[in-house]
């Protein structure tokens, strides 16, 4: 497609808006920012169509551009809420806290409603790097190689970073679900 071909680009926007919006939504955690960043990503894509060489697919190119828009936004705004699994040290560095494996209670994890709730929150508690790699894999459906191209990292780094991101998210979710279940159980006992 030629740069500046607005009709053709509109077709691309229509075809990709769901994926791009969802990428932005999961990166930012709120619909307003997702709307704005989706617009920004498409606008940047249009302005930079000349730089799209066609070596990779348009979807991958757009995902990379969108991920960068989101990461820039998150870094500038510093909107990432303090994670229950992390704290900021004296030097302002984000320190992650490991949660013991014994907190895993997968049978409770399968409670879909709780899982969904905690998944939304958990994504926002990950670092921008962990969140973006997880979203590009799970929601955008990119392969390891494609994620590597999108984030400009090696496939090996993709593999290890993705694993760490999953682990952090799993720890967050299982920890919170366990807590909630325990709380509900106590309430019932108190009533009984």
């Amino acid at each position, binding site marked *: 497609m030629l740069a500046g071909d*607005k009709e053709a680009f509109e077709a691309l926007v229509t075809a990709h808006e769901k994926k791009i*919006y969802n990428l932005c939504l999961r990166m930012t955690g709120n*619909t307003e920012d997702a709307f704005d960043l*989706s*617009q920004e990503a498409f606008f940047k894509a249009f302005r930079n169509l000349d730089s799209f060489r066609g070596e990779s697919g348009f979807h991958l190119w757009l995902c990379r551009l969108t991920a960068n828009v989101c990461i820039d936004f998150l870094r500038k705004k510093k909107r990432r809420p303090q994670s229950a699994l992390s704290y900021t040290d004296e030097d302002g560095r984000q320190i992650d806290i490991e949660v013991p494996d014994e907190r*895993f209670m*997968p049978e409770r994890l*399968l409670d879909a409603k709780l*899982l969904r709730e905690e998944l939304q929150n958990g994504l926002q508690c990950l670092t921008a790097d962990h969140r973006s790699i997880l979203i590009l894999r799970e929601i955008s459906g990119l392969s390891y190689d494609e994620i590597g191209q999108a984030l400009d990292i090696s496939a090996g780094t993709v593999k290890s970073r993705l694993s760490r991101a999953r682990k952090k998210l799993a720890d967050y979710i299982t920890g919170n679900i366990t807590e909630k279940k325990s709380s509900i159980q106590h309430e019932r006992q108190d009533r009984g």
Partner: protein
Amino acid sequence: MGTCDQYTEQISSLVDGVLPEEAAVTLRGHLATCADCGHLLLTYQAISAELANLEATPPAALSGAVMARIRVSTPRKRRPPILRRLSFAGVAALLLLVCTYAVQSKLLGGGNASDSTSSLSVASTVETEPEEAPEIRLAGSGEAQDEVSTQDAAYGSAAEAEIPAEPPKDASEASEETGGVPTTDGKSYAGSNGGDSMQSALSLEVGGGQLYAAADANSWVFLDAATVTQLLLSNGTVEAPPSESAQFVISVLLGDMETQYVIWLSEDAVYVELESGEFFISAIDFTYFSDILQSNPLLAD
């Protein structure tokens, strides 16, 4: 058999279907004997499935908003710097046209729409890059025309102006600080309304991080970037401007490339016609604008 930690990454790879078969066999052997890792696999799988289900439907307005932004911005996209500067001056020229309209409708209680048609042209006098020779023309009809004449009279009585006698000639650093204001040494744009004997001077000069409009060589009104920003309250698109709006055509010429905008001015907003047939609207804070004008000796009787 290794520790559980060494299997964590493999479990992640297994979920993604990228774990080599040999490693997968070893991992499965471990999973059969380790409840924690088995649980971790189930957790990852549940997360993966749930994330796939999280897909939300984008707002219906998204694609429209994207395309509206692209359509509005497209004429600026490939412009060389000289034309971007001119574009800013064009905005100021537009605001001054709005000003004349505001003077009539808000301040001076001027007359009704004129049946006559006149035009206001703003031609660049840039000499540094003659090959670019950009030109802005504004041609309009309707209510604003009488006010150009009204304002002409006001311009003529600007002897005690407290504003600078002339814009600074070197302002590149200040321009950076104000953001969005072109960096240039006293670049000027001058023009007049043509077509009849009521010639009104309209000069725009960019310098010192501000944009100056002049009625004559000694009197200047200045608008900085913040002022212009404050004047533009909000943006969006509408199906059509109000029927009582006055219409103007702005033509930006660069070499052989000419871009035209149809602009409508209502009492509280400027509308730019888009290729889609919609109208991009910028609401104008006329009260704020009126305050500027009223406090400006150029408009004193």
